[in-house]
């Protein structure tokens, strides 16, 4: 029998039954919830008189809407206050463990799951947020879902799902200095397209991925959905087990040894069959910056912006130029910025802040540039402060904030205004994404954002190594 992938193995062990529609009823091992996509789901449960099937497998936090400067209650934004209160009421009524604003465990849902050891290999996980694919870094099948599906997971701890195909993506060789996990995933999306992953789970491997730490793997898996893949994962290995050991929700002692045996068993077999295989060479990846209005519209720092007529989707490129206001054929290097944002579930972890601080240390943010560092969780903030990263950032002129999603999607007061251009370590450069319908976003690695903040324009971070 041909070898099986991690996807096949977890799918099989979590299958409850085949539904009359032909879909599979899949058990969900962990459900993470937050304030934005859940309120109507709880309302639906109340309407139907249902309770939560497995309340002990559901964990809640607040991240999307929280202010990152003044967090006193009630929030200045009455809608944000109402939505937060709705979650507080729901978790209390339905008996869900909640990491609220005052909790040391509060933070972006995709940062705290791994940090607490809730996210584990060989598990299925769901959350009402498309970046749930982040958790795939642990060898977890993690699904971003809508509110009706949140309701289903609450009511049954299962989802009605269709099985995906698996595409193996090998990133071979090694990355150059100044090239980060963010550059890897931006290049994967650029190559395969923002819709290219439709119908696939992405399995990332190869020497570059093998060598990455867990935080880097999370960055890669996080943006799987930007490539159209609902699921992205990395097979668990010694790096994974080392990260998990000793975390609050990870078993210890003999149980940890048994856990590792299980985790090793669910990795893809060496002779696993894939529906597609793609190879990339790590040494060809440059620091990468998006120029358009989706994450696939990206170029290496030494490249020039594409000519629409020569582009895969000429109309899409024209629409992007119309919004961004650049000239086709111009270099991306030297593009001016107004705002620098370091944070988000893509790049708001300790390793990201360290990489950015290394660039910022002893230097100054260019006058007139608004620069924000928003840790991904209260724990990341605490650890960063223990290392003095906050002092490096504030001395350089960055604002040091409380944990949350912040300017990644600008549901809190952190927003672009007018035509501002943002150098951002987040995941989406969609029109209006950072809070201004006319605003413009350039996605890049946290180190590239820091370098852009110092110069007031896009520069090559390799000049700072």
């Amino acid at each position, binding site marked *: 029998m041909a070898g099986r992938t991690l996807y096949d193995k977890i799918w099989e062990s979590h299958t*409850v039954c085949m*539904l009359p529609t*032909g879909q599979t009823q899949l058990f969900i091992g962990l459900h993470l919830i937050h304030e934005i996509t859940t309120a109507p789901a709880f309302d639906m449960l109340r309407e139907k008189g249902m309770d939560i099937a497995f309340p002990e497998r559901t964990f809640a936090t607040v991240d999307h809407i929280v202010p990152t400067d003044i967090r006193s209650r009630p929030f200045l934004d009455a809608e944000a206050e109402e939505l937060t209160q709705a979650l507080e009421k729901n978790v209390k009524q339905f008996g869900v463990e909640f990491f609220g604003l005052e909790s040391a465990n509060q933070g972006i849902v995709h940062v705290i799951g791994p940090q607490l050891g809730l996210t584990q290999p060989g598990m299925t996980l769901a959350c009402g947020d498309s970046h749930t694919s982040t958790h795939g870094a642990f060898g977890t099948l993690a699904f971003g879902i809508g509110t009706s599906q949140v309701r289903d997971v609450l009511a049954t701890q299962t*989802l009605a799902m269709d099985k995906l195909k698996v595409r193996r993506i090998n990133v071979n060789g090694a990355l150059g200095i100044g090239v980060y996990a963010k550059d890897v995933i931006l290049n994967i999306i650029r190559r395969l397209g923002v819709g290219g992953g439709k119908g696939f789970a992405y399995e990332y491997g190869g020497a570059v991925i093998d060598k990455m730490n867990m935080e880097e793997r999370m960055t890669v898996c996080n943006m799987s959905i930007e490539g159209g893949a609902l699921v992205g994962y990395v097979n668990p290995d010694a790096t994974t087990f080392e990260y998990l050991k000793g975390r609050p929700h990870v078993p210890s002692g003999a149980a940890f040894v048994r856990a590792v045996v299980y985790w090793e068993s669910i990795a893809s077999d060496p002779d696993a069959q894939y529906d597609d295989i793609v190879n990339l060479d790590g040494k060809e990846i440059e620091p990468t910056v998006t120029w358009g209005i989706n994450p696939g519209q990206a170029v290496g720092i030494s490249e020039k912006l594409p000519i629409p007529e020569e582009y895969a989707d000429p*109309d899409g490129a024209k629409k992007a130029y119309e919004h961004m206001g650049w000239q086709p054929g111009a270099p991306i290097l030297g593009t001016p910025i107004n705002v620098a944002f370091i944070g988000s579930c893509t790049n708001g972890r300790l390793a990201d802040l360290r990489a950015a601080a290394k660039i910022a240390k002893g230097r100054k943010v260019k006058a007139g540039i608004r620069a924000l560092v928003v840790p991904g969780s209260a724990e990341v903030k605490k650890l960063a402060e223990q290392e003095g990263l906050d002092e490096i950032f504030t001395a350089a002129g960055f604002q040091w904030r409380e944990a949350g999603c912040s300017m990644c999607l*600008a549901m809190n007061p952190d927003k672009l205004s007018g035509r501002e251009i943002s150098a951002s370590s987040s995941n989406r450069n969609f029109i209006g994404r950072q809070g201004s319908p006319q605003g413009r976003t350039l996605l890049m690695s946290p180190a590239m954002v820091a370098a852009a903040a110092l110069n007031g324009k896009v520069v090559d971070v390799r000049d700072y190594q």
Partner: protein
Amino acid sequence: MSDIAKIIQVSGTAVPIRGNDIDTDRIIPARYLKEVTFARMGEYPFFDERFDASGKLKPHPLNDPQYKGASILFVNKNFGCGSSREHAPQALYRYGIHAIVGESFAAIFAGNCTMMGVPTVTVSHEQVELMMKAVEQNPRTQFIVDIEKKTITFGEQRIVIDLPETYRSALISGSWDSTALLRANLAQVKKTASQLPYMNGFAG
């Protein structure tokens, strides 16, 4: 699931919204996700493309009086990419869109639509262009999207559509609202859970 409507056909006039990779932030800006219910989402689809900062109308198909009352939406590739926000299909549905026809759809968006009883069906680029042109030339053109027969008919034309068989089955059998279907198997769910080693903390 006898209390849920079977979605066999959606018929009516149509509105075209052109462009590939139209993301859910464009369909509904994040600030509207602060509302506690979906009740008012029908006021917001494509809000920032339809209104400027002062609330003045911008040129957009949804602002064009000739497409008023359309119940079918024509789109291009990878429609609904990005955020998983169900607010996006909720906004379109509550605005009056009851079926979406395009070249392809993002996975989470298509799943969300199906769970609301809104079919997302695919046709080729040439076919969607043909239908977009037909509706642009005569906005009163009546379309019938038949989920059971997998066709779209308008005038003398008949086009074969595609959608995942599982979605088709859920729609035409009236089991697209899956909670009751899933909840019926709770005993089996508990059995599956009990066989997963992490569910008891890897206790020997």
